[in-house]
């Protein structure tokens, strides 16, 4: 058996003369903030023994189904579901996984709101959740606009007036089906997934917010609670 030689960078250390390189700086940042044990933990704090904590994971599961079913729909195009029972099934799978995604996300939001989950230097975690929610609403709207039926035409004309009313109508045209379809299958899913990943990494970095009664005296420096 031959021993495998690990370079200093592979072991996370690196050579002293390489310390100023951007690769070394990023590695040190990741090793410091997201060591493997924190990124994929075996245990969580005991106060997580409540059903309310599962809705974040359920939201991610529903999002995965949204992306998979949406990817299948993109193979045959937005009119597939009009003339194929398989297309109708996949389209329905996409719709209902979106329904569950929003359902779980709203319950997750309520839970975190009443926990005041922005405590303990977790404001960025909270705000990335807010932005994901807003991007998801945009993805939902453009999804309705991509149905290729009278419903989507009606929604697009109503949305045009609403978006013009709030002053953002010059940035995109909801009456342009091609533009809205590209927003729906490229820009907004990329935003939702990317910010969701950042959201989860921040949860891993900062830890799950402890109950208010367990709040440490100096909450600004709090990270994780006691392990179960």
């Amino acid at each position, binding site marked *: 058996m031959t021993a495998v030689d690990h370079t200093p960078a592979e072991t996370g250390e690196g050579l002293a003369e390489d310390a100023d390189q951007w690769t070394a700086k990023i590695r040190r940042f990741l090793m410091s903030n997201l060591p493997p044990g924190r990124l994929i933990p075996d245990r969580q704090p005991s106060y997580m023994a*409540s059903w*309310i904590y599962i809705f974040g994971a359920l939201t991610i599961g529903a999002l995965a189904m949204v992306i998979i079913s949406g990817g299948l729909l993109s193979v045959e195009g937005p009119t597939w579901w009009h003339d194929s029972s398989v297309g109708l099934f996949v389209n329905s799978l996409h719709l209902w996984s979106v329904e569950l995604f929003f359902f779980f996300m709203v*319950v997750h939001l*309520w839970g975190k709101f009443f926990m005041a989950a922005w405590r303990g230097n977790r404001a960025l975690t909270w705000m990335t959740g807010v932005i994901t929610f807003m991007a998801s609403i945009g993805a939902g709207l453009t999804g309705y606009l991509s149905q290729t039926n009278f419903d989507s035409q009606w929604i697009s004309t109503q949305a045009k007036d609403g978006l013009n009313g709030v002053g953002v109508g010059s940035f995109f045209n909801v009456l342009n089906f091609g533009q809205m379809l590209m927003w729906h299958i490229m820009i907004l899913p990329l935003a939702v997934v990317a910010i969701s990943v950042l959201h989860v990494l921040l949860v891993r970095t900062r830890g799950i917010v402890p109950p208010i009664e367990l709040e440490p005296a100096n909450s600004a420096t709090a990270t994780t609670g006691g392990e*179960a």
Partner: protein
Amino acid sequence: MTAALAVVVAALVNITGPGHYIHWGFIQISVGNIIVISLMVVTFLAAILIPYHRKGGRS
């Protein structure tokens, strides 16, 4: 059998007709939306109130 099943499912979830709305003063909301919001509230309360038992009896 499949046709009968289709009729039952279609009867349960008929989205081809005009929508049904609840009017209460200045509040107007579709029946579908009020059902979903009610389910979310029930789920939220259940998630808080129902005890979470883990394998091995640790709490």
